[in-house]
Every structure is written in C-alpha cells, then in structure tokens.
C-alpha cells in the first residue's frame, strides 16, 4: 500500500497523528522526516515511546527520505509521511511529485512572525507563499487537523 497521508505537523508524532489519523487510516508505519531527529537517538527514543508497538516509526533526513519515497510507496504496509515544516515537505514533493501529491497541513503553531490562519495553523508570509508555490507546482494542499474536522482548501487559508 502507498503512503496514505502526507502531513506537516510541527509536533511531529502525537495523539492526533497516532490515534486521530492512525486508527481510521490503519497506519502501519510513520516515516518521520527531520534532519535533527534522524541523527538524535534520544529524540528517536522519545518519539517511539509515543507510538503503539504495532506502528513502526522510520526516521530519515530529507535527502535520505527523498531517496526512499519510492520504496515506501511500494511497501505492502500503509504509511504516513510526516514532516515538521513546509520546507521539508516541499523538498519531498519536488523529489517525487506523484507520491507527495496531496499535502495535509495538520498543525503549524505560533512563533514570532507567524500569523493565525486557522486555530491550529500559523504561517509567516513566506510560508504562505511557499504553499501557494507548491500548489502551482501541482500539489494539492489542504488543512485538516483531524479526520472529523472539515477540510480547508489552501485558497481559503492564504
């Protein structure tokens, strides 16, 4: 089965991902793409602790993940691709536009320079422009924190 969800969430692995999306989508592995986490054993241990044993967590830096997208897509297990920022997801989209096609904005939270677009989505103007560019490049971008929440298309956010 392919990667069934490509999600940007700066909290990375947490309840909304594992329970909220993981259960209804029957996720069997999470591909967590973050350069810092990929080289930090203690961070990996913490993220693994948040996931039930039946879900595997695969850690990768952006370049490594880009090279493994085809392998994950061809896997017989259902996967969720997870990045902590838009830049990383955009790089993965550029590496494989067919695999990383529909991009879910699940949680990007407050930090200096970001403005509230939705209660769970804060973006700087540069980030908003990057998302528009992603759609211009053929991706479909939508915001939805949980499967039970309404889908908000990008044009209604930026």
């Amino acid at each position, binding site marked *: 089965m392919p990667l069934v969800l490509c999600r940007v969430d*700066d*909290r*990375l*692995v*947490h*309840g909304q991902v*594992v*329970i909220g999306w993981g*259960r*209804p989508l029957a996720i069997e592995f999470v591909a967590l793409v973050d350069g*810092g*986490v990929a080289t*930090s054993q*203690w*961070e990996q*241990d*913490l*993220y693994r*602790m*948040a*996931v039930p044993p039946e879900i595997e967590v695969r850690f990768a830096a952006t370049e490594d993940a880009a090279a493994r997208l085809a392998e994950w897509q061809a896997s017989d297990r259902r996967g969720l691709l997870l990045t902590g920022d838009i830049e990383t997801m955009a790089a993965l989209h550029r590496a494989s536009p067919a695999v990383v096609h529909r991009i879910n904005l699940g949680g990007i*939270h*407050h*930090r200096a320079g970001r403005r*509230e677009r939705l*209660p*769970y989505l*804060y973006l700087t103007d540069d980030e908003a422009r990057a998302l528009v560019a992603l759609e211009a490049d053929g991706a479909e971008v939508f915001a939805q924190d*949980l*499967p*039970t929440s309404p889908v908000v298309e990008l044009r209604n956010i930026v």
Partner: protein
Amino acid sequence: MTGRWRALLRLFAVQGTWNYERMLGVGMGYAAEPLLEDLKTVDPVRHGEAVVRSAEFFNCNPNLAGLALGATARAEYEDVPGPQIARLRTALCSPLGSLGDDLFWAGLVPALVGLALIAVVFGAGWWAILGFLVLYNAIRVGTAVWALKAGLDAGMRVGSAISASWIPRAIARIGPLAGAGIGLAVPLVAGWYLRGFGWSGGSGALAIAAAGLAVARWFGPSLTGVRFALLSMVLLLLFRRMGL
C-alpha cells in the same frame, strides 16, 4: 533549586491559560518561574532566556507535564544549550501526550467510571461517586508529585527515566481493566435504567445501539459519540411524538 512546591502548585493550573497559540506553554512558563528563580543570581542572561523558553508552545497530558517541567528546569541549570532544551520540549510533547492519555483518559478514567457505575447499580449510591472522585484525584495528585520529582532528577535523561518508570507497566495493566470495567458496567447500567420499561423499552434501546453501530460503520470517524447521542435524542423525541 528552590521553589519546587510552588512549581507543583502552579502545575495544577497548567491549563489555566490554554490557547491554540501556545497550548500549555504559558501555564508551563508560570510553573517554571519558581524553579528558575535561583538562576537569576547565577546567570541573569541565561535566566531571561530560560523564562522565555519555558513559556513557548508546549502540549502534553497535563498530569505528566511535571516531567517536562522538571527536566527542562534542570537542563537550564546544567547549562545545556538552549536549542537542545527546545528540542527536548518538542520531543517530550509526544510521549507525555500519548502515555498520559493512555494512562488517564483511556485507562484510569474509564476504569474508575466503570467501577463506580457498577457500584451504583449494586446500591452504593453517592458513596460510589465520592469514592471515584477521591481515588481519581489521589492518583492524579500523586502522579503530579512523582512527575515533577522524576523530571528534576533526570534532566536531559528524562526519556530513559520514563521508560524505566512505573508508567508503561501501569498502562499495560489499566487498559484491560478499563475495557473490563466499561464492558461490565454498560449492560448492568442499561438493565438498571430499563427496569420497569418492559420489553418495548429494552427493544428500543437495543435498536438504538444497533443503529449506532451501523451508522458508525457507514460514517466512520466523522460520527463522534456526541453527534450520535444528539441524533439518538432527536429520534427518541420524534418516536414519542409519533406515539411509538
């Protein structure tokens, strides 16, 4: 490091300023302030940075927030680089959210509610409610005290401390107890409520339960418990108006 008890008391209000922008962040900053006080005299610049860092975005189960609070406060005193502490805070959101939710919301609360309901059915009355409140809050407070101490003791090694602690073992035990408690309580409470309604009342309740299962399969996760309960109430009122 002084101010542990003040920090603990403030932790009980950690959700007091919950908001989408920082979630528990401001509450964590408020609770961290007494712990960071001694840093002011040692390194005022670091103290300022630490206070700001402690109030950044943070989210986890509030009952385990003390682990993150204690660990990051100790890391500040140990002069761990700021970006690394920020990464620790971010990474702790995951296990402290998931383990805390498993332990409390999916384990302890349904287990104790199930036991309290069973006790009510068997005639314990208000004592069952009181017992539930006392036991639940005793465990919650005890967990908060332990969490802050464990975090302060472990610092950056808090991940190993959590793995080796009682929490994973407790989750493994409380989950089945919650399932058994609720599984036993539901038919008992249903029978208790439906006493005197006869077969028609029982059949109606069964029909609603069967409809709930069918509709849940049809609509999937978009049908939440609250939505189904509201739908059931509307249907019941409709049936009553129709004289059924």
